[in-house]
């Protein structure tokens, strides 16, 4: 941001105004004394009327969050550094819940968990603040998920479609392409008007910088807010980062827009919360997590929702009418050696509306995105799919799951009957079609054309190792010759005999006139 030139009169005018409005009444506050400071956790004596989750002010404008209210003491975590705090110092109640700046001003910026800019682009002129912990919209305020959230990843939009307002978990071991899917989904929202929030929790600062650079390269940063709590930030910051990001996303949802938030990843947030809880001496449970670890994630993910027009109208005082809002969440969970039955993965699987399960073996055998078709599901996305995708991608997931099983078995069989051989061939081709390069999200029309080709057998005479090139050529042919049709499908997503006929014409003329060798 540019630094505005302020004339001296403006400054003194401002100061005069502030002095005039300065409240001279004595300040009434509640004070406590620090009893101990260790590992970012402070114990306080006094502060008898502090509230759970209230901000506490320490020396030098450091703030803390009151988490444990005990009979004789208060346990709080320090938000930021704590090396200047010491035993005997006083601490004040603020009477406020932690708030972060929200609004359009944050788009294109990289901020920390408290909403402070860390990208060196100057101060953020946010017009509004929002508490990080909010109660999720109730039953009355909600509306079923019925609009698609196109990720631009063929395998996802075909097999595990995601709707606006859905919570879809991305789960898998390290290095299986979890973040890649999330980034592709953000890039694909370039022209959709969907605002994106990428919350990086406990990641290396270098990885975050790489993500930001990639978003910038693909012109996707201007509709994105990046909230960062890196591995070197205090555990308290890693713990609150998802809530801060969620508050920023809710701002868009509550004014009748659509937003997409990615929590990358919640495993690290759970670790940070476990650390805080153990330092606060809360009793450890399974895997040493505290008792409320489920609530930690459920209250966060419950805030991702689609809300109806009346709710929006009420919240905006009638300024926005007839528009629904949504916040779609893509939480990421990292498993250890593919163990989805560990504590946190099972919790988050049960909270979300489905999961995208990524596997190391698939990834290593070159199937990228490495989505396991059998274990991945989307519980509500089907209702939100566009007609054309629903029609063309309908049986792919089940077909792929069956193919993988059959392929494993067929290794032991010497001679295969005709039907099995055909199924295997087809499965191989579909697997090939589902592969996609990173940072190349596809539009609905592109996907539909490719899926139509696979569905109607246009790929049967294409060698498996040429399918990727066939697809690439087909798409450029499509754009070069049928721009109008592409636009129409992208806009309406309709499917009827006429569309099918058109697709047939396109494919036939492509196969007749183009080469893919």
């Amino acid at each position, binding site marked *: 941001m540019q630094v505005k030139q302020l004339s001296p009169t403006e400054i003194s005018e401002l100061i005069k105004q502030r002095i005039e409005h300065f409240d001279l009444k004595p300040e009434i506050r*509640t*004070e406590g004394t620090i*009893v101990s400071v260790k590992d970012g956790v402070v114990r306080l004596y006094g*502060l008898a009327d502090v509230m759970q989750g209230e901000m506490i002010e320490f020396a030098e404008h450091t703030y803390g969050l009151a988490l444990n209210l*005990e009979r004789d003491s208060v346990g709080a975590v320090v938000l930021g550094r704590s090396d200047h705090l010491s035993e005997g110092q006083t601490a004040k109640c603020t009477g406020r819940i932690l708030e972060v700046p929200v609004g359009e001003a944050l788009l294109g910026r990289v901020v920390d968990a408290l909403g402070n800019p860390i990208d060196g682009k100057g101060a953020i002129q946010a017009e509004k603040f929002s508490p990080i912990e909010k109660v999720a919209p109730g039953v009355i305020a909600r509306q079923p998920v019925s609009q698609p959230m196109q990720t631009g990843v063929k395998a996802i939009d075909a097999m595990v479609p995601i709707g606006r307002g859905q919570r879809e978990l991305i789960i898998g071991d390290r290095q299986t392409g979890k973040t890649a899917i999330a980034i592709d989904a953000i890039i694909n929202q370039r022209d959709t008007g969907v605002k994106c929030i990428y919350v990086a929790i406990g990641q290396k600062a270098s990885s975050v910088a790489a993500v930001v650079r990639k978003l910038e390269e693909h012109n996707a940063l201007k509709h994105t807010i990046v909230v960062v709590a890196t591995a070197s930030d205090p555990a308290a910051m890693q713990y609150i980062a998802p809530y801060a990001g969620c508050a920023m996303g809710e701002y868009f949802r509550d004014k009748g827009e659509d937003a997409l938030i990615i929590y990358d990843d919640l495993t690290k947030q759970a670790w940070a919360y476990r650390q805080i809880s153990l330092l606060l001496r809360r009793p450890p449970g399974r895997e040493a997590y505290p008792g409320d670890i489920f609530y930690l994630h459920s209250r966060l993910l419950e805030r991702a929702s689609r809300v109806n027009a009346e709710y929006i109208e009420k919240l905006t005082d009638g300024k926005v009418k007839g528009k629904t809002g949504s916040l779609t969440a893509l939480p990421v969970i990292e498993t250890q050696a593919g163990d989805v039955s560990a504590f946190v993965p099972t919790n988050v699987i049960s909270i979300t509306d489905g999961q995208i399960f990524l596997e190391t073996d698939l990834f290593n055998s070159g199937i990228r995105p490495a989505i396991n078709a059998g274990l991945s599901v989307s519980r509500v996305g089907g209702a939100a799919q566009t007609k054309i995708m629903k029609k063309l991608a309908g049986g792919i997931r089940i077909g792929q799951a069956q193919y993988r099983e059959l392929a494993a078995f067929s290794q032991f069989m010497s001679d295969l009957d005709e039907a099995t051989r055909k199924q295997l061939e087809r499965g191989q081709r579909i697997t090939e079609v589902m592969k996609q390069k990173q940072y190349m999200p596809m539009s609905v029309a592109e996907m539909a054309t490719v899926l139509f080709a696979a569905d109607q057998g246009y790929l049967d005479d294409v060698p498996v190792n040429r399918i990727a090139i066939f697809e690439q050529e087909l798409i450029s042919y499509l754009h070069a010759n049928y721009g109008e049709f592409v636009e129409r499908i992208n806009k309406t997503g309709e499917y009827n005999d006429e569309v099918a006929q058109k697709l047939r014409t396109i494919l036939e003329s492509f196969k007749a006139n183009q080469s893919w060798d």
Partner: protein
Amino acid sequence: MANLSSIARPYALAAFEYARDKQQLPEWKAFLESASCAARQPTVIRLLDNPELPSAKAFDLFHEVLASQLDTERKNFLRLLSQHKRFNVLPEISDAFNALYAALEKTSKVRVITAVEAEETFRQKLAHVLAKRTQRDVMLHCEVDPAIIGGAIIHIGDRVIDGSVRGKLNRLLESLTD
């Protein structure tokens, strides 16, 4: 100190309720205060910390020091402390006892910090106003701190009423640099 006051609370409550029922509150208060005074002495602390000290010996020590204030029940109280090796929490017991006593008597201690020595009329007026506000008898404890420049800071328990010039200047600074 969280742990110690948790330990002290049942002792203080038992002593308080007993004293209240027997109408011996002032005597018990004085007894606990002198006992805690003794327990606060560095040499005594060191002695009590010694794991080799037989509990009977500690009891004898306190018995001797507090002989003039002891009756059978207070002696039993000391014996109980010695049995449980809790002489070190005496200061907390005394504090908790005093808090209960103050709640019963509806008195509260108020710390007043002023820049210059407060005049008697001011003190009386302040005590009167605070008594009305807190609905309690107020025991003023005045301190002088020139660093606050002017005005006064009043501490009532956790609550602080900051009417000092220093506090106002700090807040002005905050509102200007915000």
